[in-house]
């Protein structure tokens, strides 16, 4: 059965003006890269990546974007929310030298990934990028992990100046990595792709999701037809290279295409 849980929000952590982390006391049993479908039964159910996950609690880190997330930002600790999942594919756990390239609200899922990689003895370099200091997330949390982190902002207001892709480009010229992970805006990943074309990698994608269980077909990726909610959201290089819509278009709730 596709179980649904309805629980009070146990904790709300303000990360930036527009990004909050919501914590629930529940043993989700998820793997890094997976997501939940979250709803308040007021209209709308949306996918969010898991940013923290232990046997007693899990968190999702959410950016205020539209109707649903705006309503969510008005909720308080103790308010009930309902979720199902975890769904989807997860990141391959590579035990050697890995590079994590992240951008914006999509970085926090790397926290869950990094914890798991550390447990498996990987040697981690994280690029945590954002546009500007006030939008930078999880820097403190990553600092508590014993990993090499490079913070970067487009405007240089925090960490280095430049995009995550700029930093990745520089690192890859100097060093060798066995595996690259990317999670961030699609155009960031699109820009990253040529930079890491000699590497093995996995990208975390976002597409509009409705059923999240692989039947409605709203989240299929052209031309493969694979469903981002089942075969994704984490896709390996071989798949990414075949995607004709990557960096070009995605589909609205109606299924109609919109260009990035």
């Amino acid at each position: 059965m596709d179980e649904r849980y309805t629980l009070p929000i146990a904790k709300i952590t303000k990360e930036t003006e527009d990004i909050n982390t919501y914590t629930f006391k529940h043993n989700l049993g998820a793997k890094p890269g997976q997501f939940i479908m979250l709803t308040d039964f007021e209209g709308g159910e949306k996918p969010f990546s898991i940013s923290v996950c232990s046997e007693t609690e899990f968190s999702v880190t959410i950016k205020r974007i539209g109707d649903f997330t705006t309503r969510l930002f008005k909720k308080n600790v103790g308010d009930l929310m309902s979720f199902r999942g975890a769904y989807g594919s997860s990141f391959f756990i590579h035990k050697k030298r890995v590079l994590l390239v992240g951008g914006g609200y999509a970085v926090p899922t790397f926290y869950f990934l990094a914890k798991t990689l550390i447990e498996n003895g990987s040697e981690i370099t994280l690029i945590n990028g954002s546009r500007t200091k006030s939008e930078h997330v999880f820097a403190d949390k990553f600092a508590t992990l014993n990993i090499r982190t490079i913070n970067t902002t487009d405007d240089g207001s925090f960490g280095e100046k430049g995009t995550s892709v700029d930093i990745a480009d520089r690192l890859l010229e100097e060093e060798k990595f066995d595996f690259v992970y990317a999670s961030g805006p699609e155009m960031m990943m699109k820009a990253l792709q040529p930079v890491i074309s000699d590497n093995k990698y996995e990208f975390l994608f976002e597409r509009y999701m409705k059923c999240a269980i692989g039947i409605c077909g709203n989240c299929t990726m052209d031309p493969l037809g694979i469903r981002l909610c089942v075969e994704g959201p984490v896709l390996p290089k071989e798949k990414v290279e075949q995607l004709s819509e990557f960096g070009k278009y995605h589909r609205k709730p109606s299924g109609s295409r919109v260009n990035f």
Partner: protein
Amino acid sequence: MNKIKTEFLGAKVSSPLVLPAGVMGMSFSGLNYCVENGIGVVTSKSLTLVERSGHNGPVIAEFEGGFINAMGLCNPGIVEGLAEINEFKQHSDTPVIVSVFATNTEDFIELTNYVNKSQGDFIELNLSCPNVFDEFGIPLAASKDKVAEIVRAVKEISTIPVIAKLSPNVYNISEIALVAEAAGADALCMINTVGPGMLIDKKMVKPILSNRTGGLSGPCIKPIALRLIHEVYSKVNIPIIGTGGVTNGDDAIEMIMAGSTLIGVGTAVYYRGIEVFDKINQEMIKFMDEENYASINDLPKLEKLK
């Protein structure tokens, strides 16, 4: 795989399995993915004249034996929808059923005119969506007059065979089927989802689906589908696409015995993965091997009702 080859309204199909409307049918690639996994015929999401975003989430919820869903007929509209089908047809010769939805005859006619210009092989009239009650009221398939009127109007202008998709939620299914046949339907697809039903979140005291209610699909509707198909098969002379709860080879065989020519497989994609079509193909072949049937067309049917 020769054992499961068959024909449907003159078209050769590699397997009797049909992807029903609304399942994986949003994009050319979704359809193609199902073909790669063994489906014989694909159906598009039900297309409307104007783009629809569908209902807000949650749009689907599980219970024991099935799902309720209320997608709300989300689709990119007939023009973009047909473009997906044409794109699909560039890569595949698998027959495509174009499902269309409207609430009146004029709109069905307009939709048919579009479909005529596409590469779709069949047009299916969704007369039976149970998830847009609030917007459109009781499904057309509950009224003999409306079924007759719409089927006749579409048949008159359609350049490809016309399939009427019927609702299970009626007491007089064979009368409605007979009316559709008399009006010129070349085939029937049955059943659409059952009910609808509702599920409740007991902590928040709210319906789980944002549309409140949704039609039932999955294994638990199979007995209803089998009953209705058998009743209709006993009366009409046009082929039936038997749909509802088919999850394994046994179910598919039962559907054929009840009177189906082709068999829809929708919700089972959740239960058994996208590989479900190949699995069911293999399971049907296994049954035929064990019971010495040389071809799917040799499978016997239940005795007709009088």
